């Protein structure tokens, strides 16, 4: 290709001295990168809402097909108590399932790693279990655990479980062989090696699994509420569906997204506090 006349925007732009980009002294104390990242995230979110609202306005969707974020937020702020109570239910179910799934997942991942003789039996079985859509298990859990809190928590657990198995195993598996050798040369007991090297080494990977699982767990709770129940955001969505009340449905979506986002950032924050070295090595 021949060199096409290239418009060099930098050359065309007049060089202006412009105001010095001196940051105010207080801003330097905040982390500048995370600050601008936060602003960009908010801008992106507002932009999304704007496009959504604009699309609804321009294409003039009927109210039973799609409503804009403004009517969704209107609905949210006219009945804040209704959404808060049901959100709390879903949050509790999701968190309980997440906690159970994490505990069980880490345990299974560790078993998979340490009991290497069991691995050829255990691994295919785990994959087989994972291929069953958890949504399909929900009715079974209702039969087993009833219509209340427990069945939803167990659906959430079933979904949250697997990413933690894989990530715990991967984390343990990535411990450098030199550290294994060091432990062996010094005759470290298996327990000492686990506590002083393996698990701390695997923590970043375990947290990655937890970040994936937390939003899955909330989704699992909603699925449980779809199947049976009279509480929670899943129930709110189902009820709104039967009444063709789209503002209420979209309000529930927004609350769900907010919950998942909040939980994700909490886990992210904990991992940053707990694993400060990760900020340097990456």
């Amino acid at each position, binding site marked *: 290709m021949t060199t096409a006349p290239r418009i060099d925007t930098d050359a065309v732009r007049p060089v202006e001295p412009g105001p010095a980009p001196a940051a105010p002294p207080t801003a330097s104390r905040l982390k500048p990168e995370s600050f601008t990242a936060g602003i960009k995230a908010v801008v992106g979110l507002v932009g999304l809402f704007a496009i959504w609202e604009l699309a609804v306005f321009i294409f003039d969707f009927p109210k039973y097909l799609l409503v804009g974020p403004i009517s969704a937020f209107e609905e949210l702020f006219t009945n804040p108590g209704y959404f808060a109570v049901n959100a709390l239910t879903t949050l509790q179910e999701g968190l309980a399932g997440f906690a159970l799934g994490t505990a069980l997942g880490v345990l299974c991942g560790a078993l998979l790693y340490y009991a290497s003789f069991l691995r050829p039996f255990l691994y295919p079985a785990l994959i087989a279990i994972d291929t069953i859509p958890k949504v399909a298990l929900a009715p079974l859990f209702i039969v087993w655990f009833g219509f209340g809190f427990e069945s939803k928590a167990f659906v959430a657990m079933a979904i949250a479980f697997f990413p933690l198995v894989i990530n715990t195993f991967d984390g343990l598996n990535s411990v*450098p062989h*030199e*550290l294994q*050798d*060091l*432990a*062996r*040369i*010094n*005759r*470290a*007991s298996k327990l*000492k*090696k686990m506590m*002083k*090297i393996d698990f*701390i*080494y695997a923590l970043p990977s375990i947290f990655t699994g937890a970040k994936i699982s937390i939003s899955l767990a909330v989704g699992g709770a909603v699925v449980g509420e779809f199947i049976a129940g009279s509480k929670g955001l899943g129930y709110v969505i189902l009820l709104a569906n039967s009444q063709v009340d789209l503002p209420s449905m979209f309000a529930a979506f927004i609350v769900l997204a907010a919950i998942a986002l909040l939980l994700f950032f909490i886990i992210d924050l904990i991992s940053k506090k707990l*694993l400060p*070295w990760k900020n*340097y*090595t990456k």
Partner: protein
Amino acid sequence: MTTDYAISVNNVGKTYTSRDGQENVVLKGLDFHVNPGEFVSIVGQSGSGKTTLLNTISGLQEASEGEILIRGREISAALKDIGMVFQSPVLLPWRNNLDNVLLPLEFRDAVTSESKDHAMELLQMVGLGEKATRYSYELSGGMQQRVAICRALVSRPEILLMDEPFGALDAMTRDSMNFEIQRIWRRTGCSVLFVTHSISEAVWLADRVVVVGDRPGRIVADVKVDIERPRAKEHKFSENFASYVAEIESHIGVTAGIS
């Protein structure tokens, strides 16, 4: 009189059998000794089984034939006499440097206030006394490897095994680390077995250079290096030094390409 040797490798062989039954002879008929307080380098091309040899001496791998005695005893009884330095420092990023040095003693439930002082002395010896409470990610590669050396020395081993410890460092850092290890060795008086693929490094550091040949790994030469100590940088440019390097190169069978 095997008990007179720090390390005694007697007719050691190592054979791996692959899944389809094929035998892969990695080491064959290795026979050499390391005297107490001696610094012995092992050179050879990559893939010649140097690391396997070191791993059998440290007890991480079992020899298929022959026997290895550490100060006249079986390896299993002698593990506490061995300190090991790997190619990468592999320090634990969540521990500060002092705690990294103390790790082997924690494994052995042997941390005392005396051993803490000893760990601190070691860090001071390598010039990192002021960095004791800092973390590995705050250190350069050379400094990290010095911490790893302290970690290997903290249990007061009589034998220090080093597996290409400076292979990942740049040339200048590597030179200064060579000085450092000479100084450490002279101060601690331990026997060192130092694996490297740099012939000049091997010659400059060692009392003896053991040359390991390829496929299967076997000893092709055992060269005594008669250069006075302590050695300085100038020794690298002496005729004497060059002739040692040339001799070892001829044993390895390369004419160029290895520094």
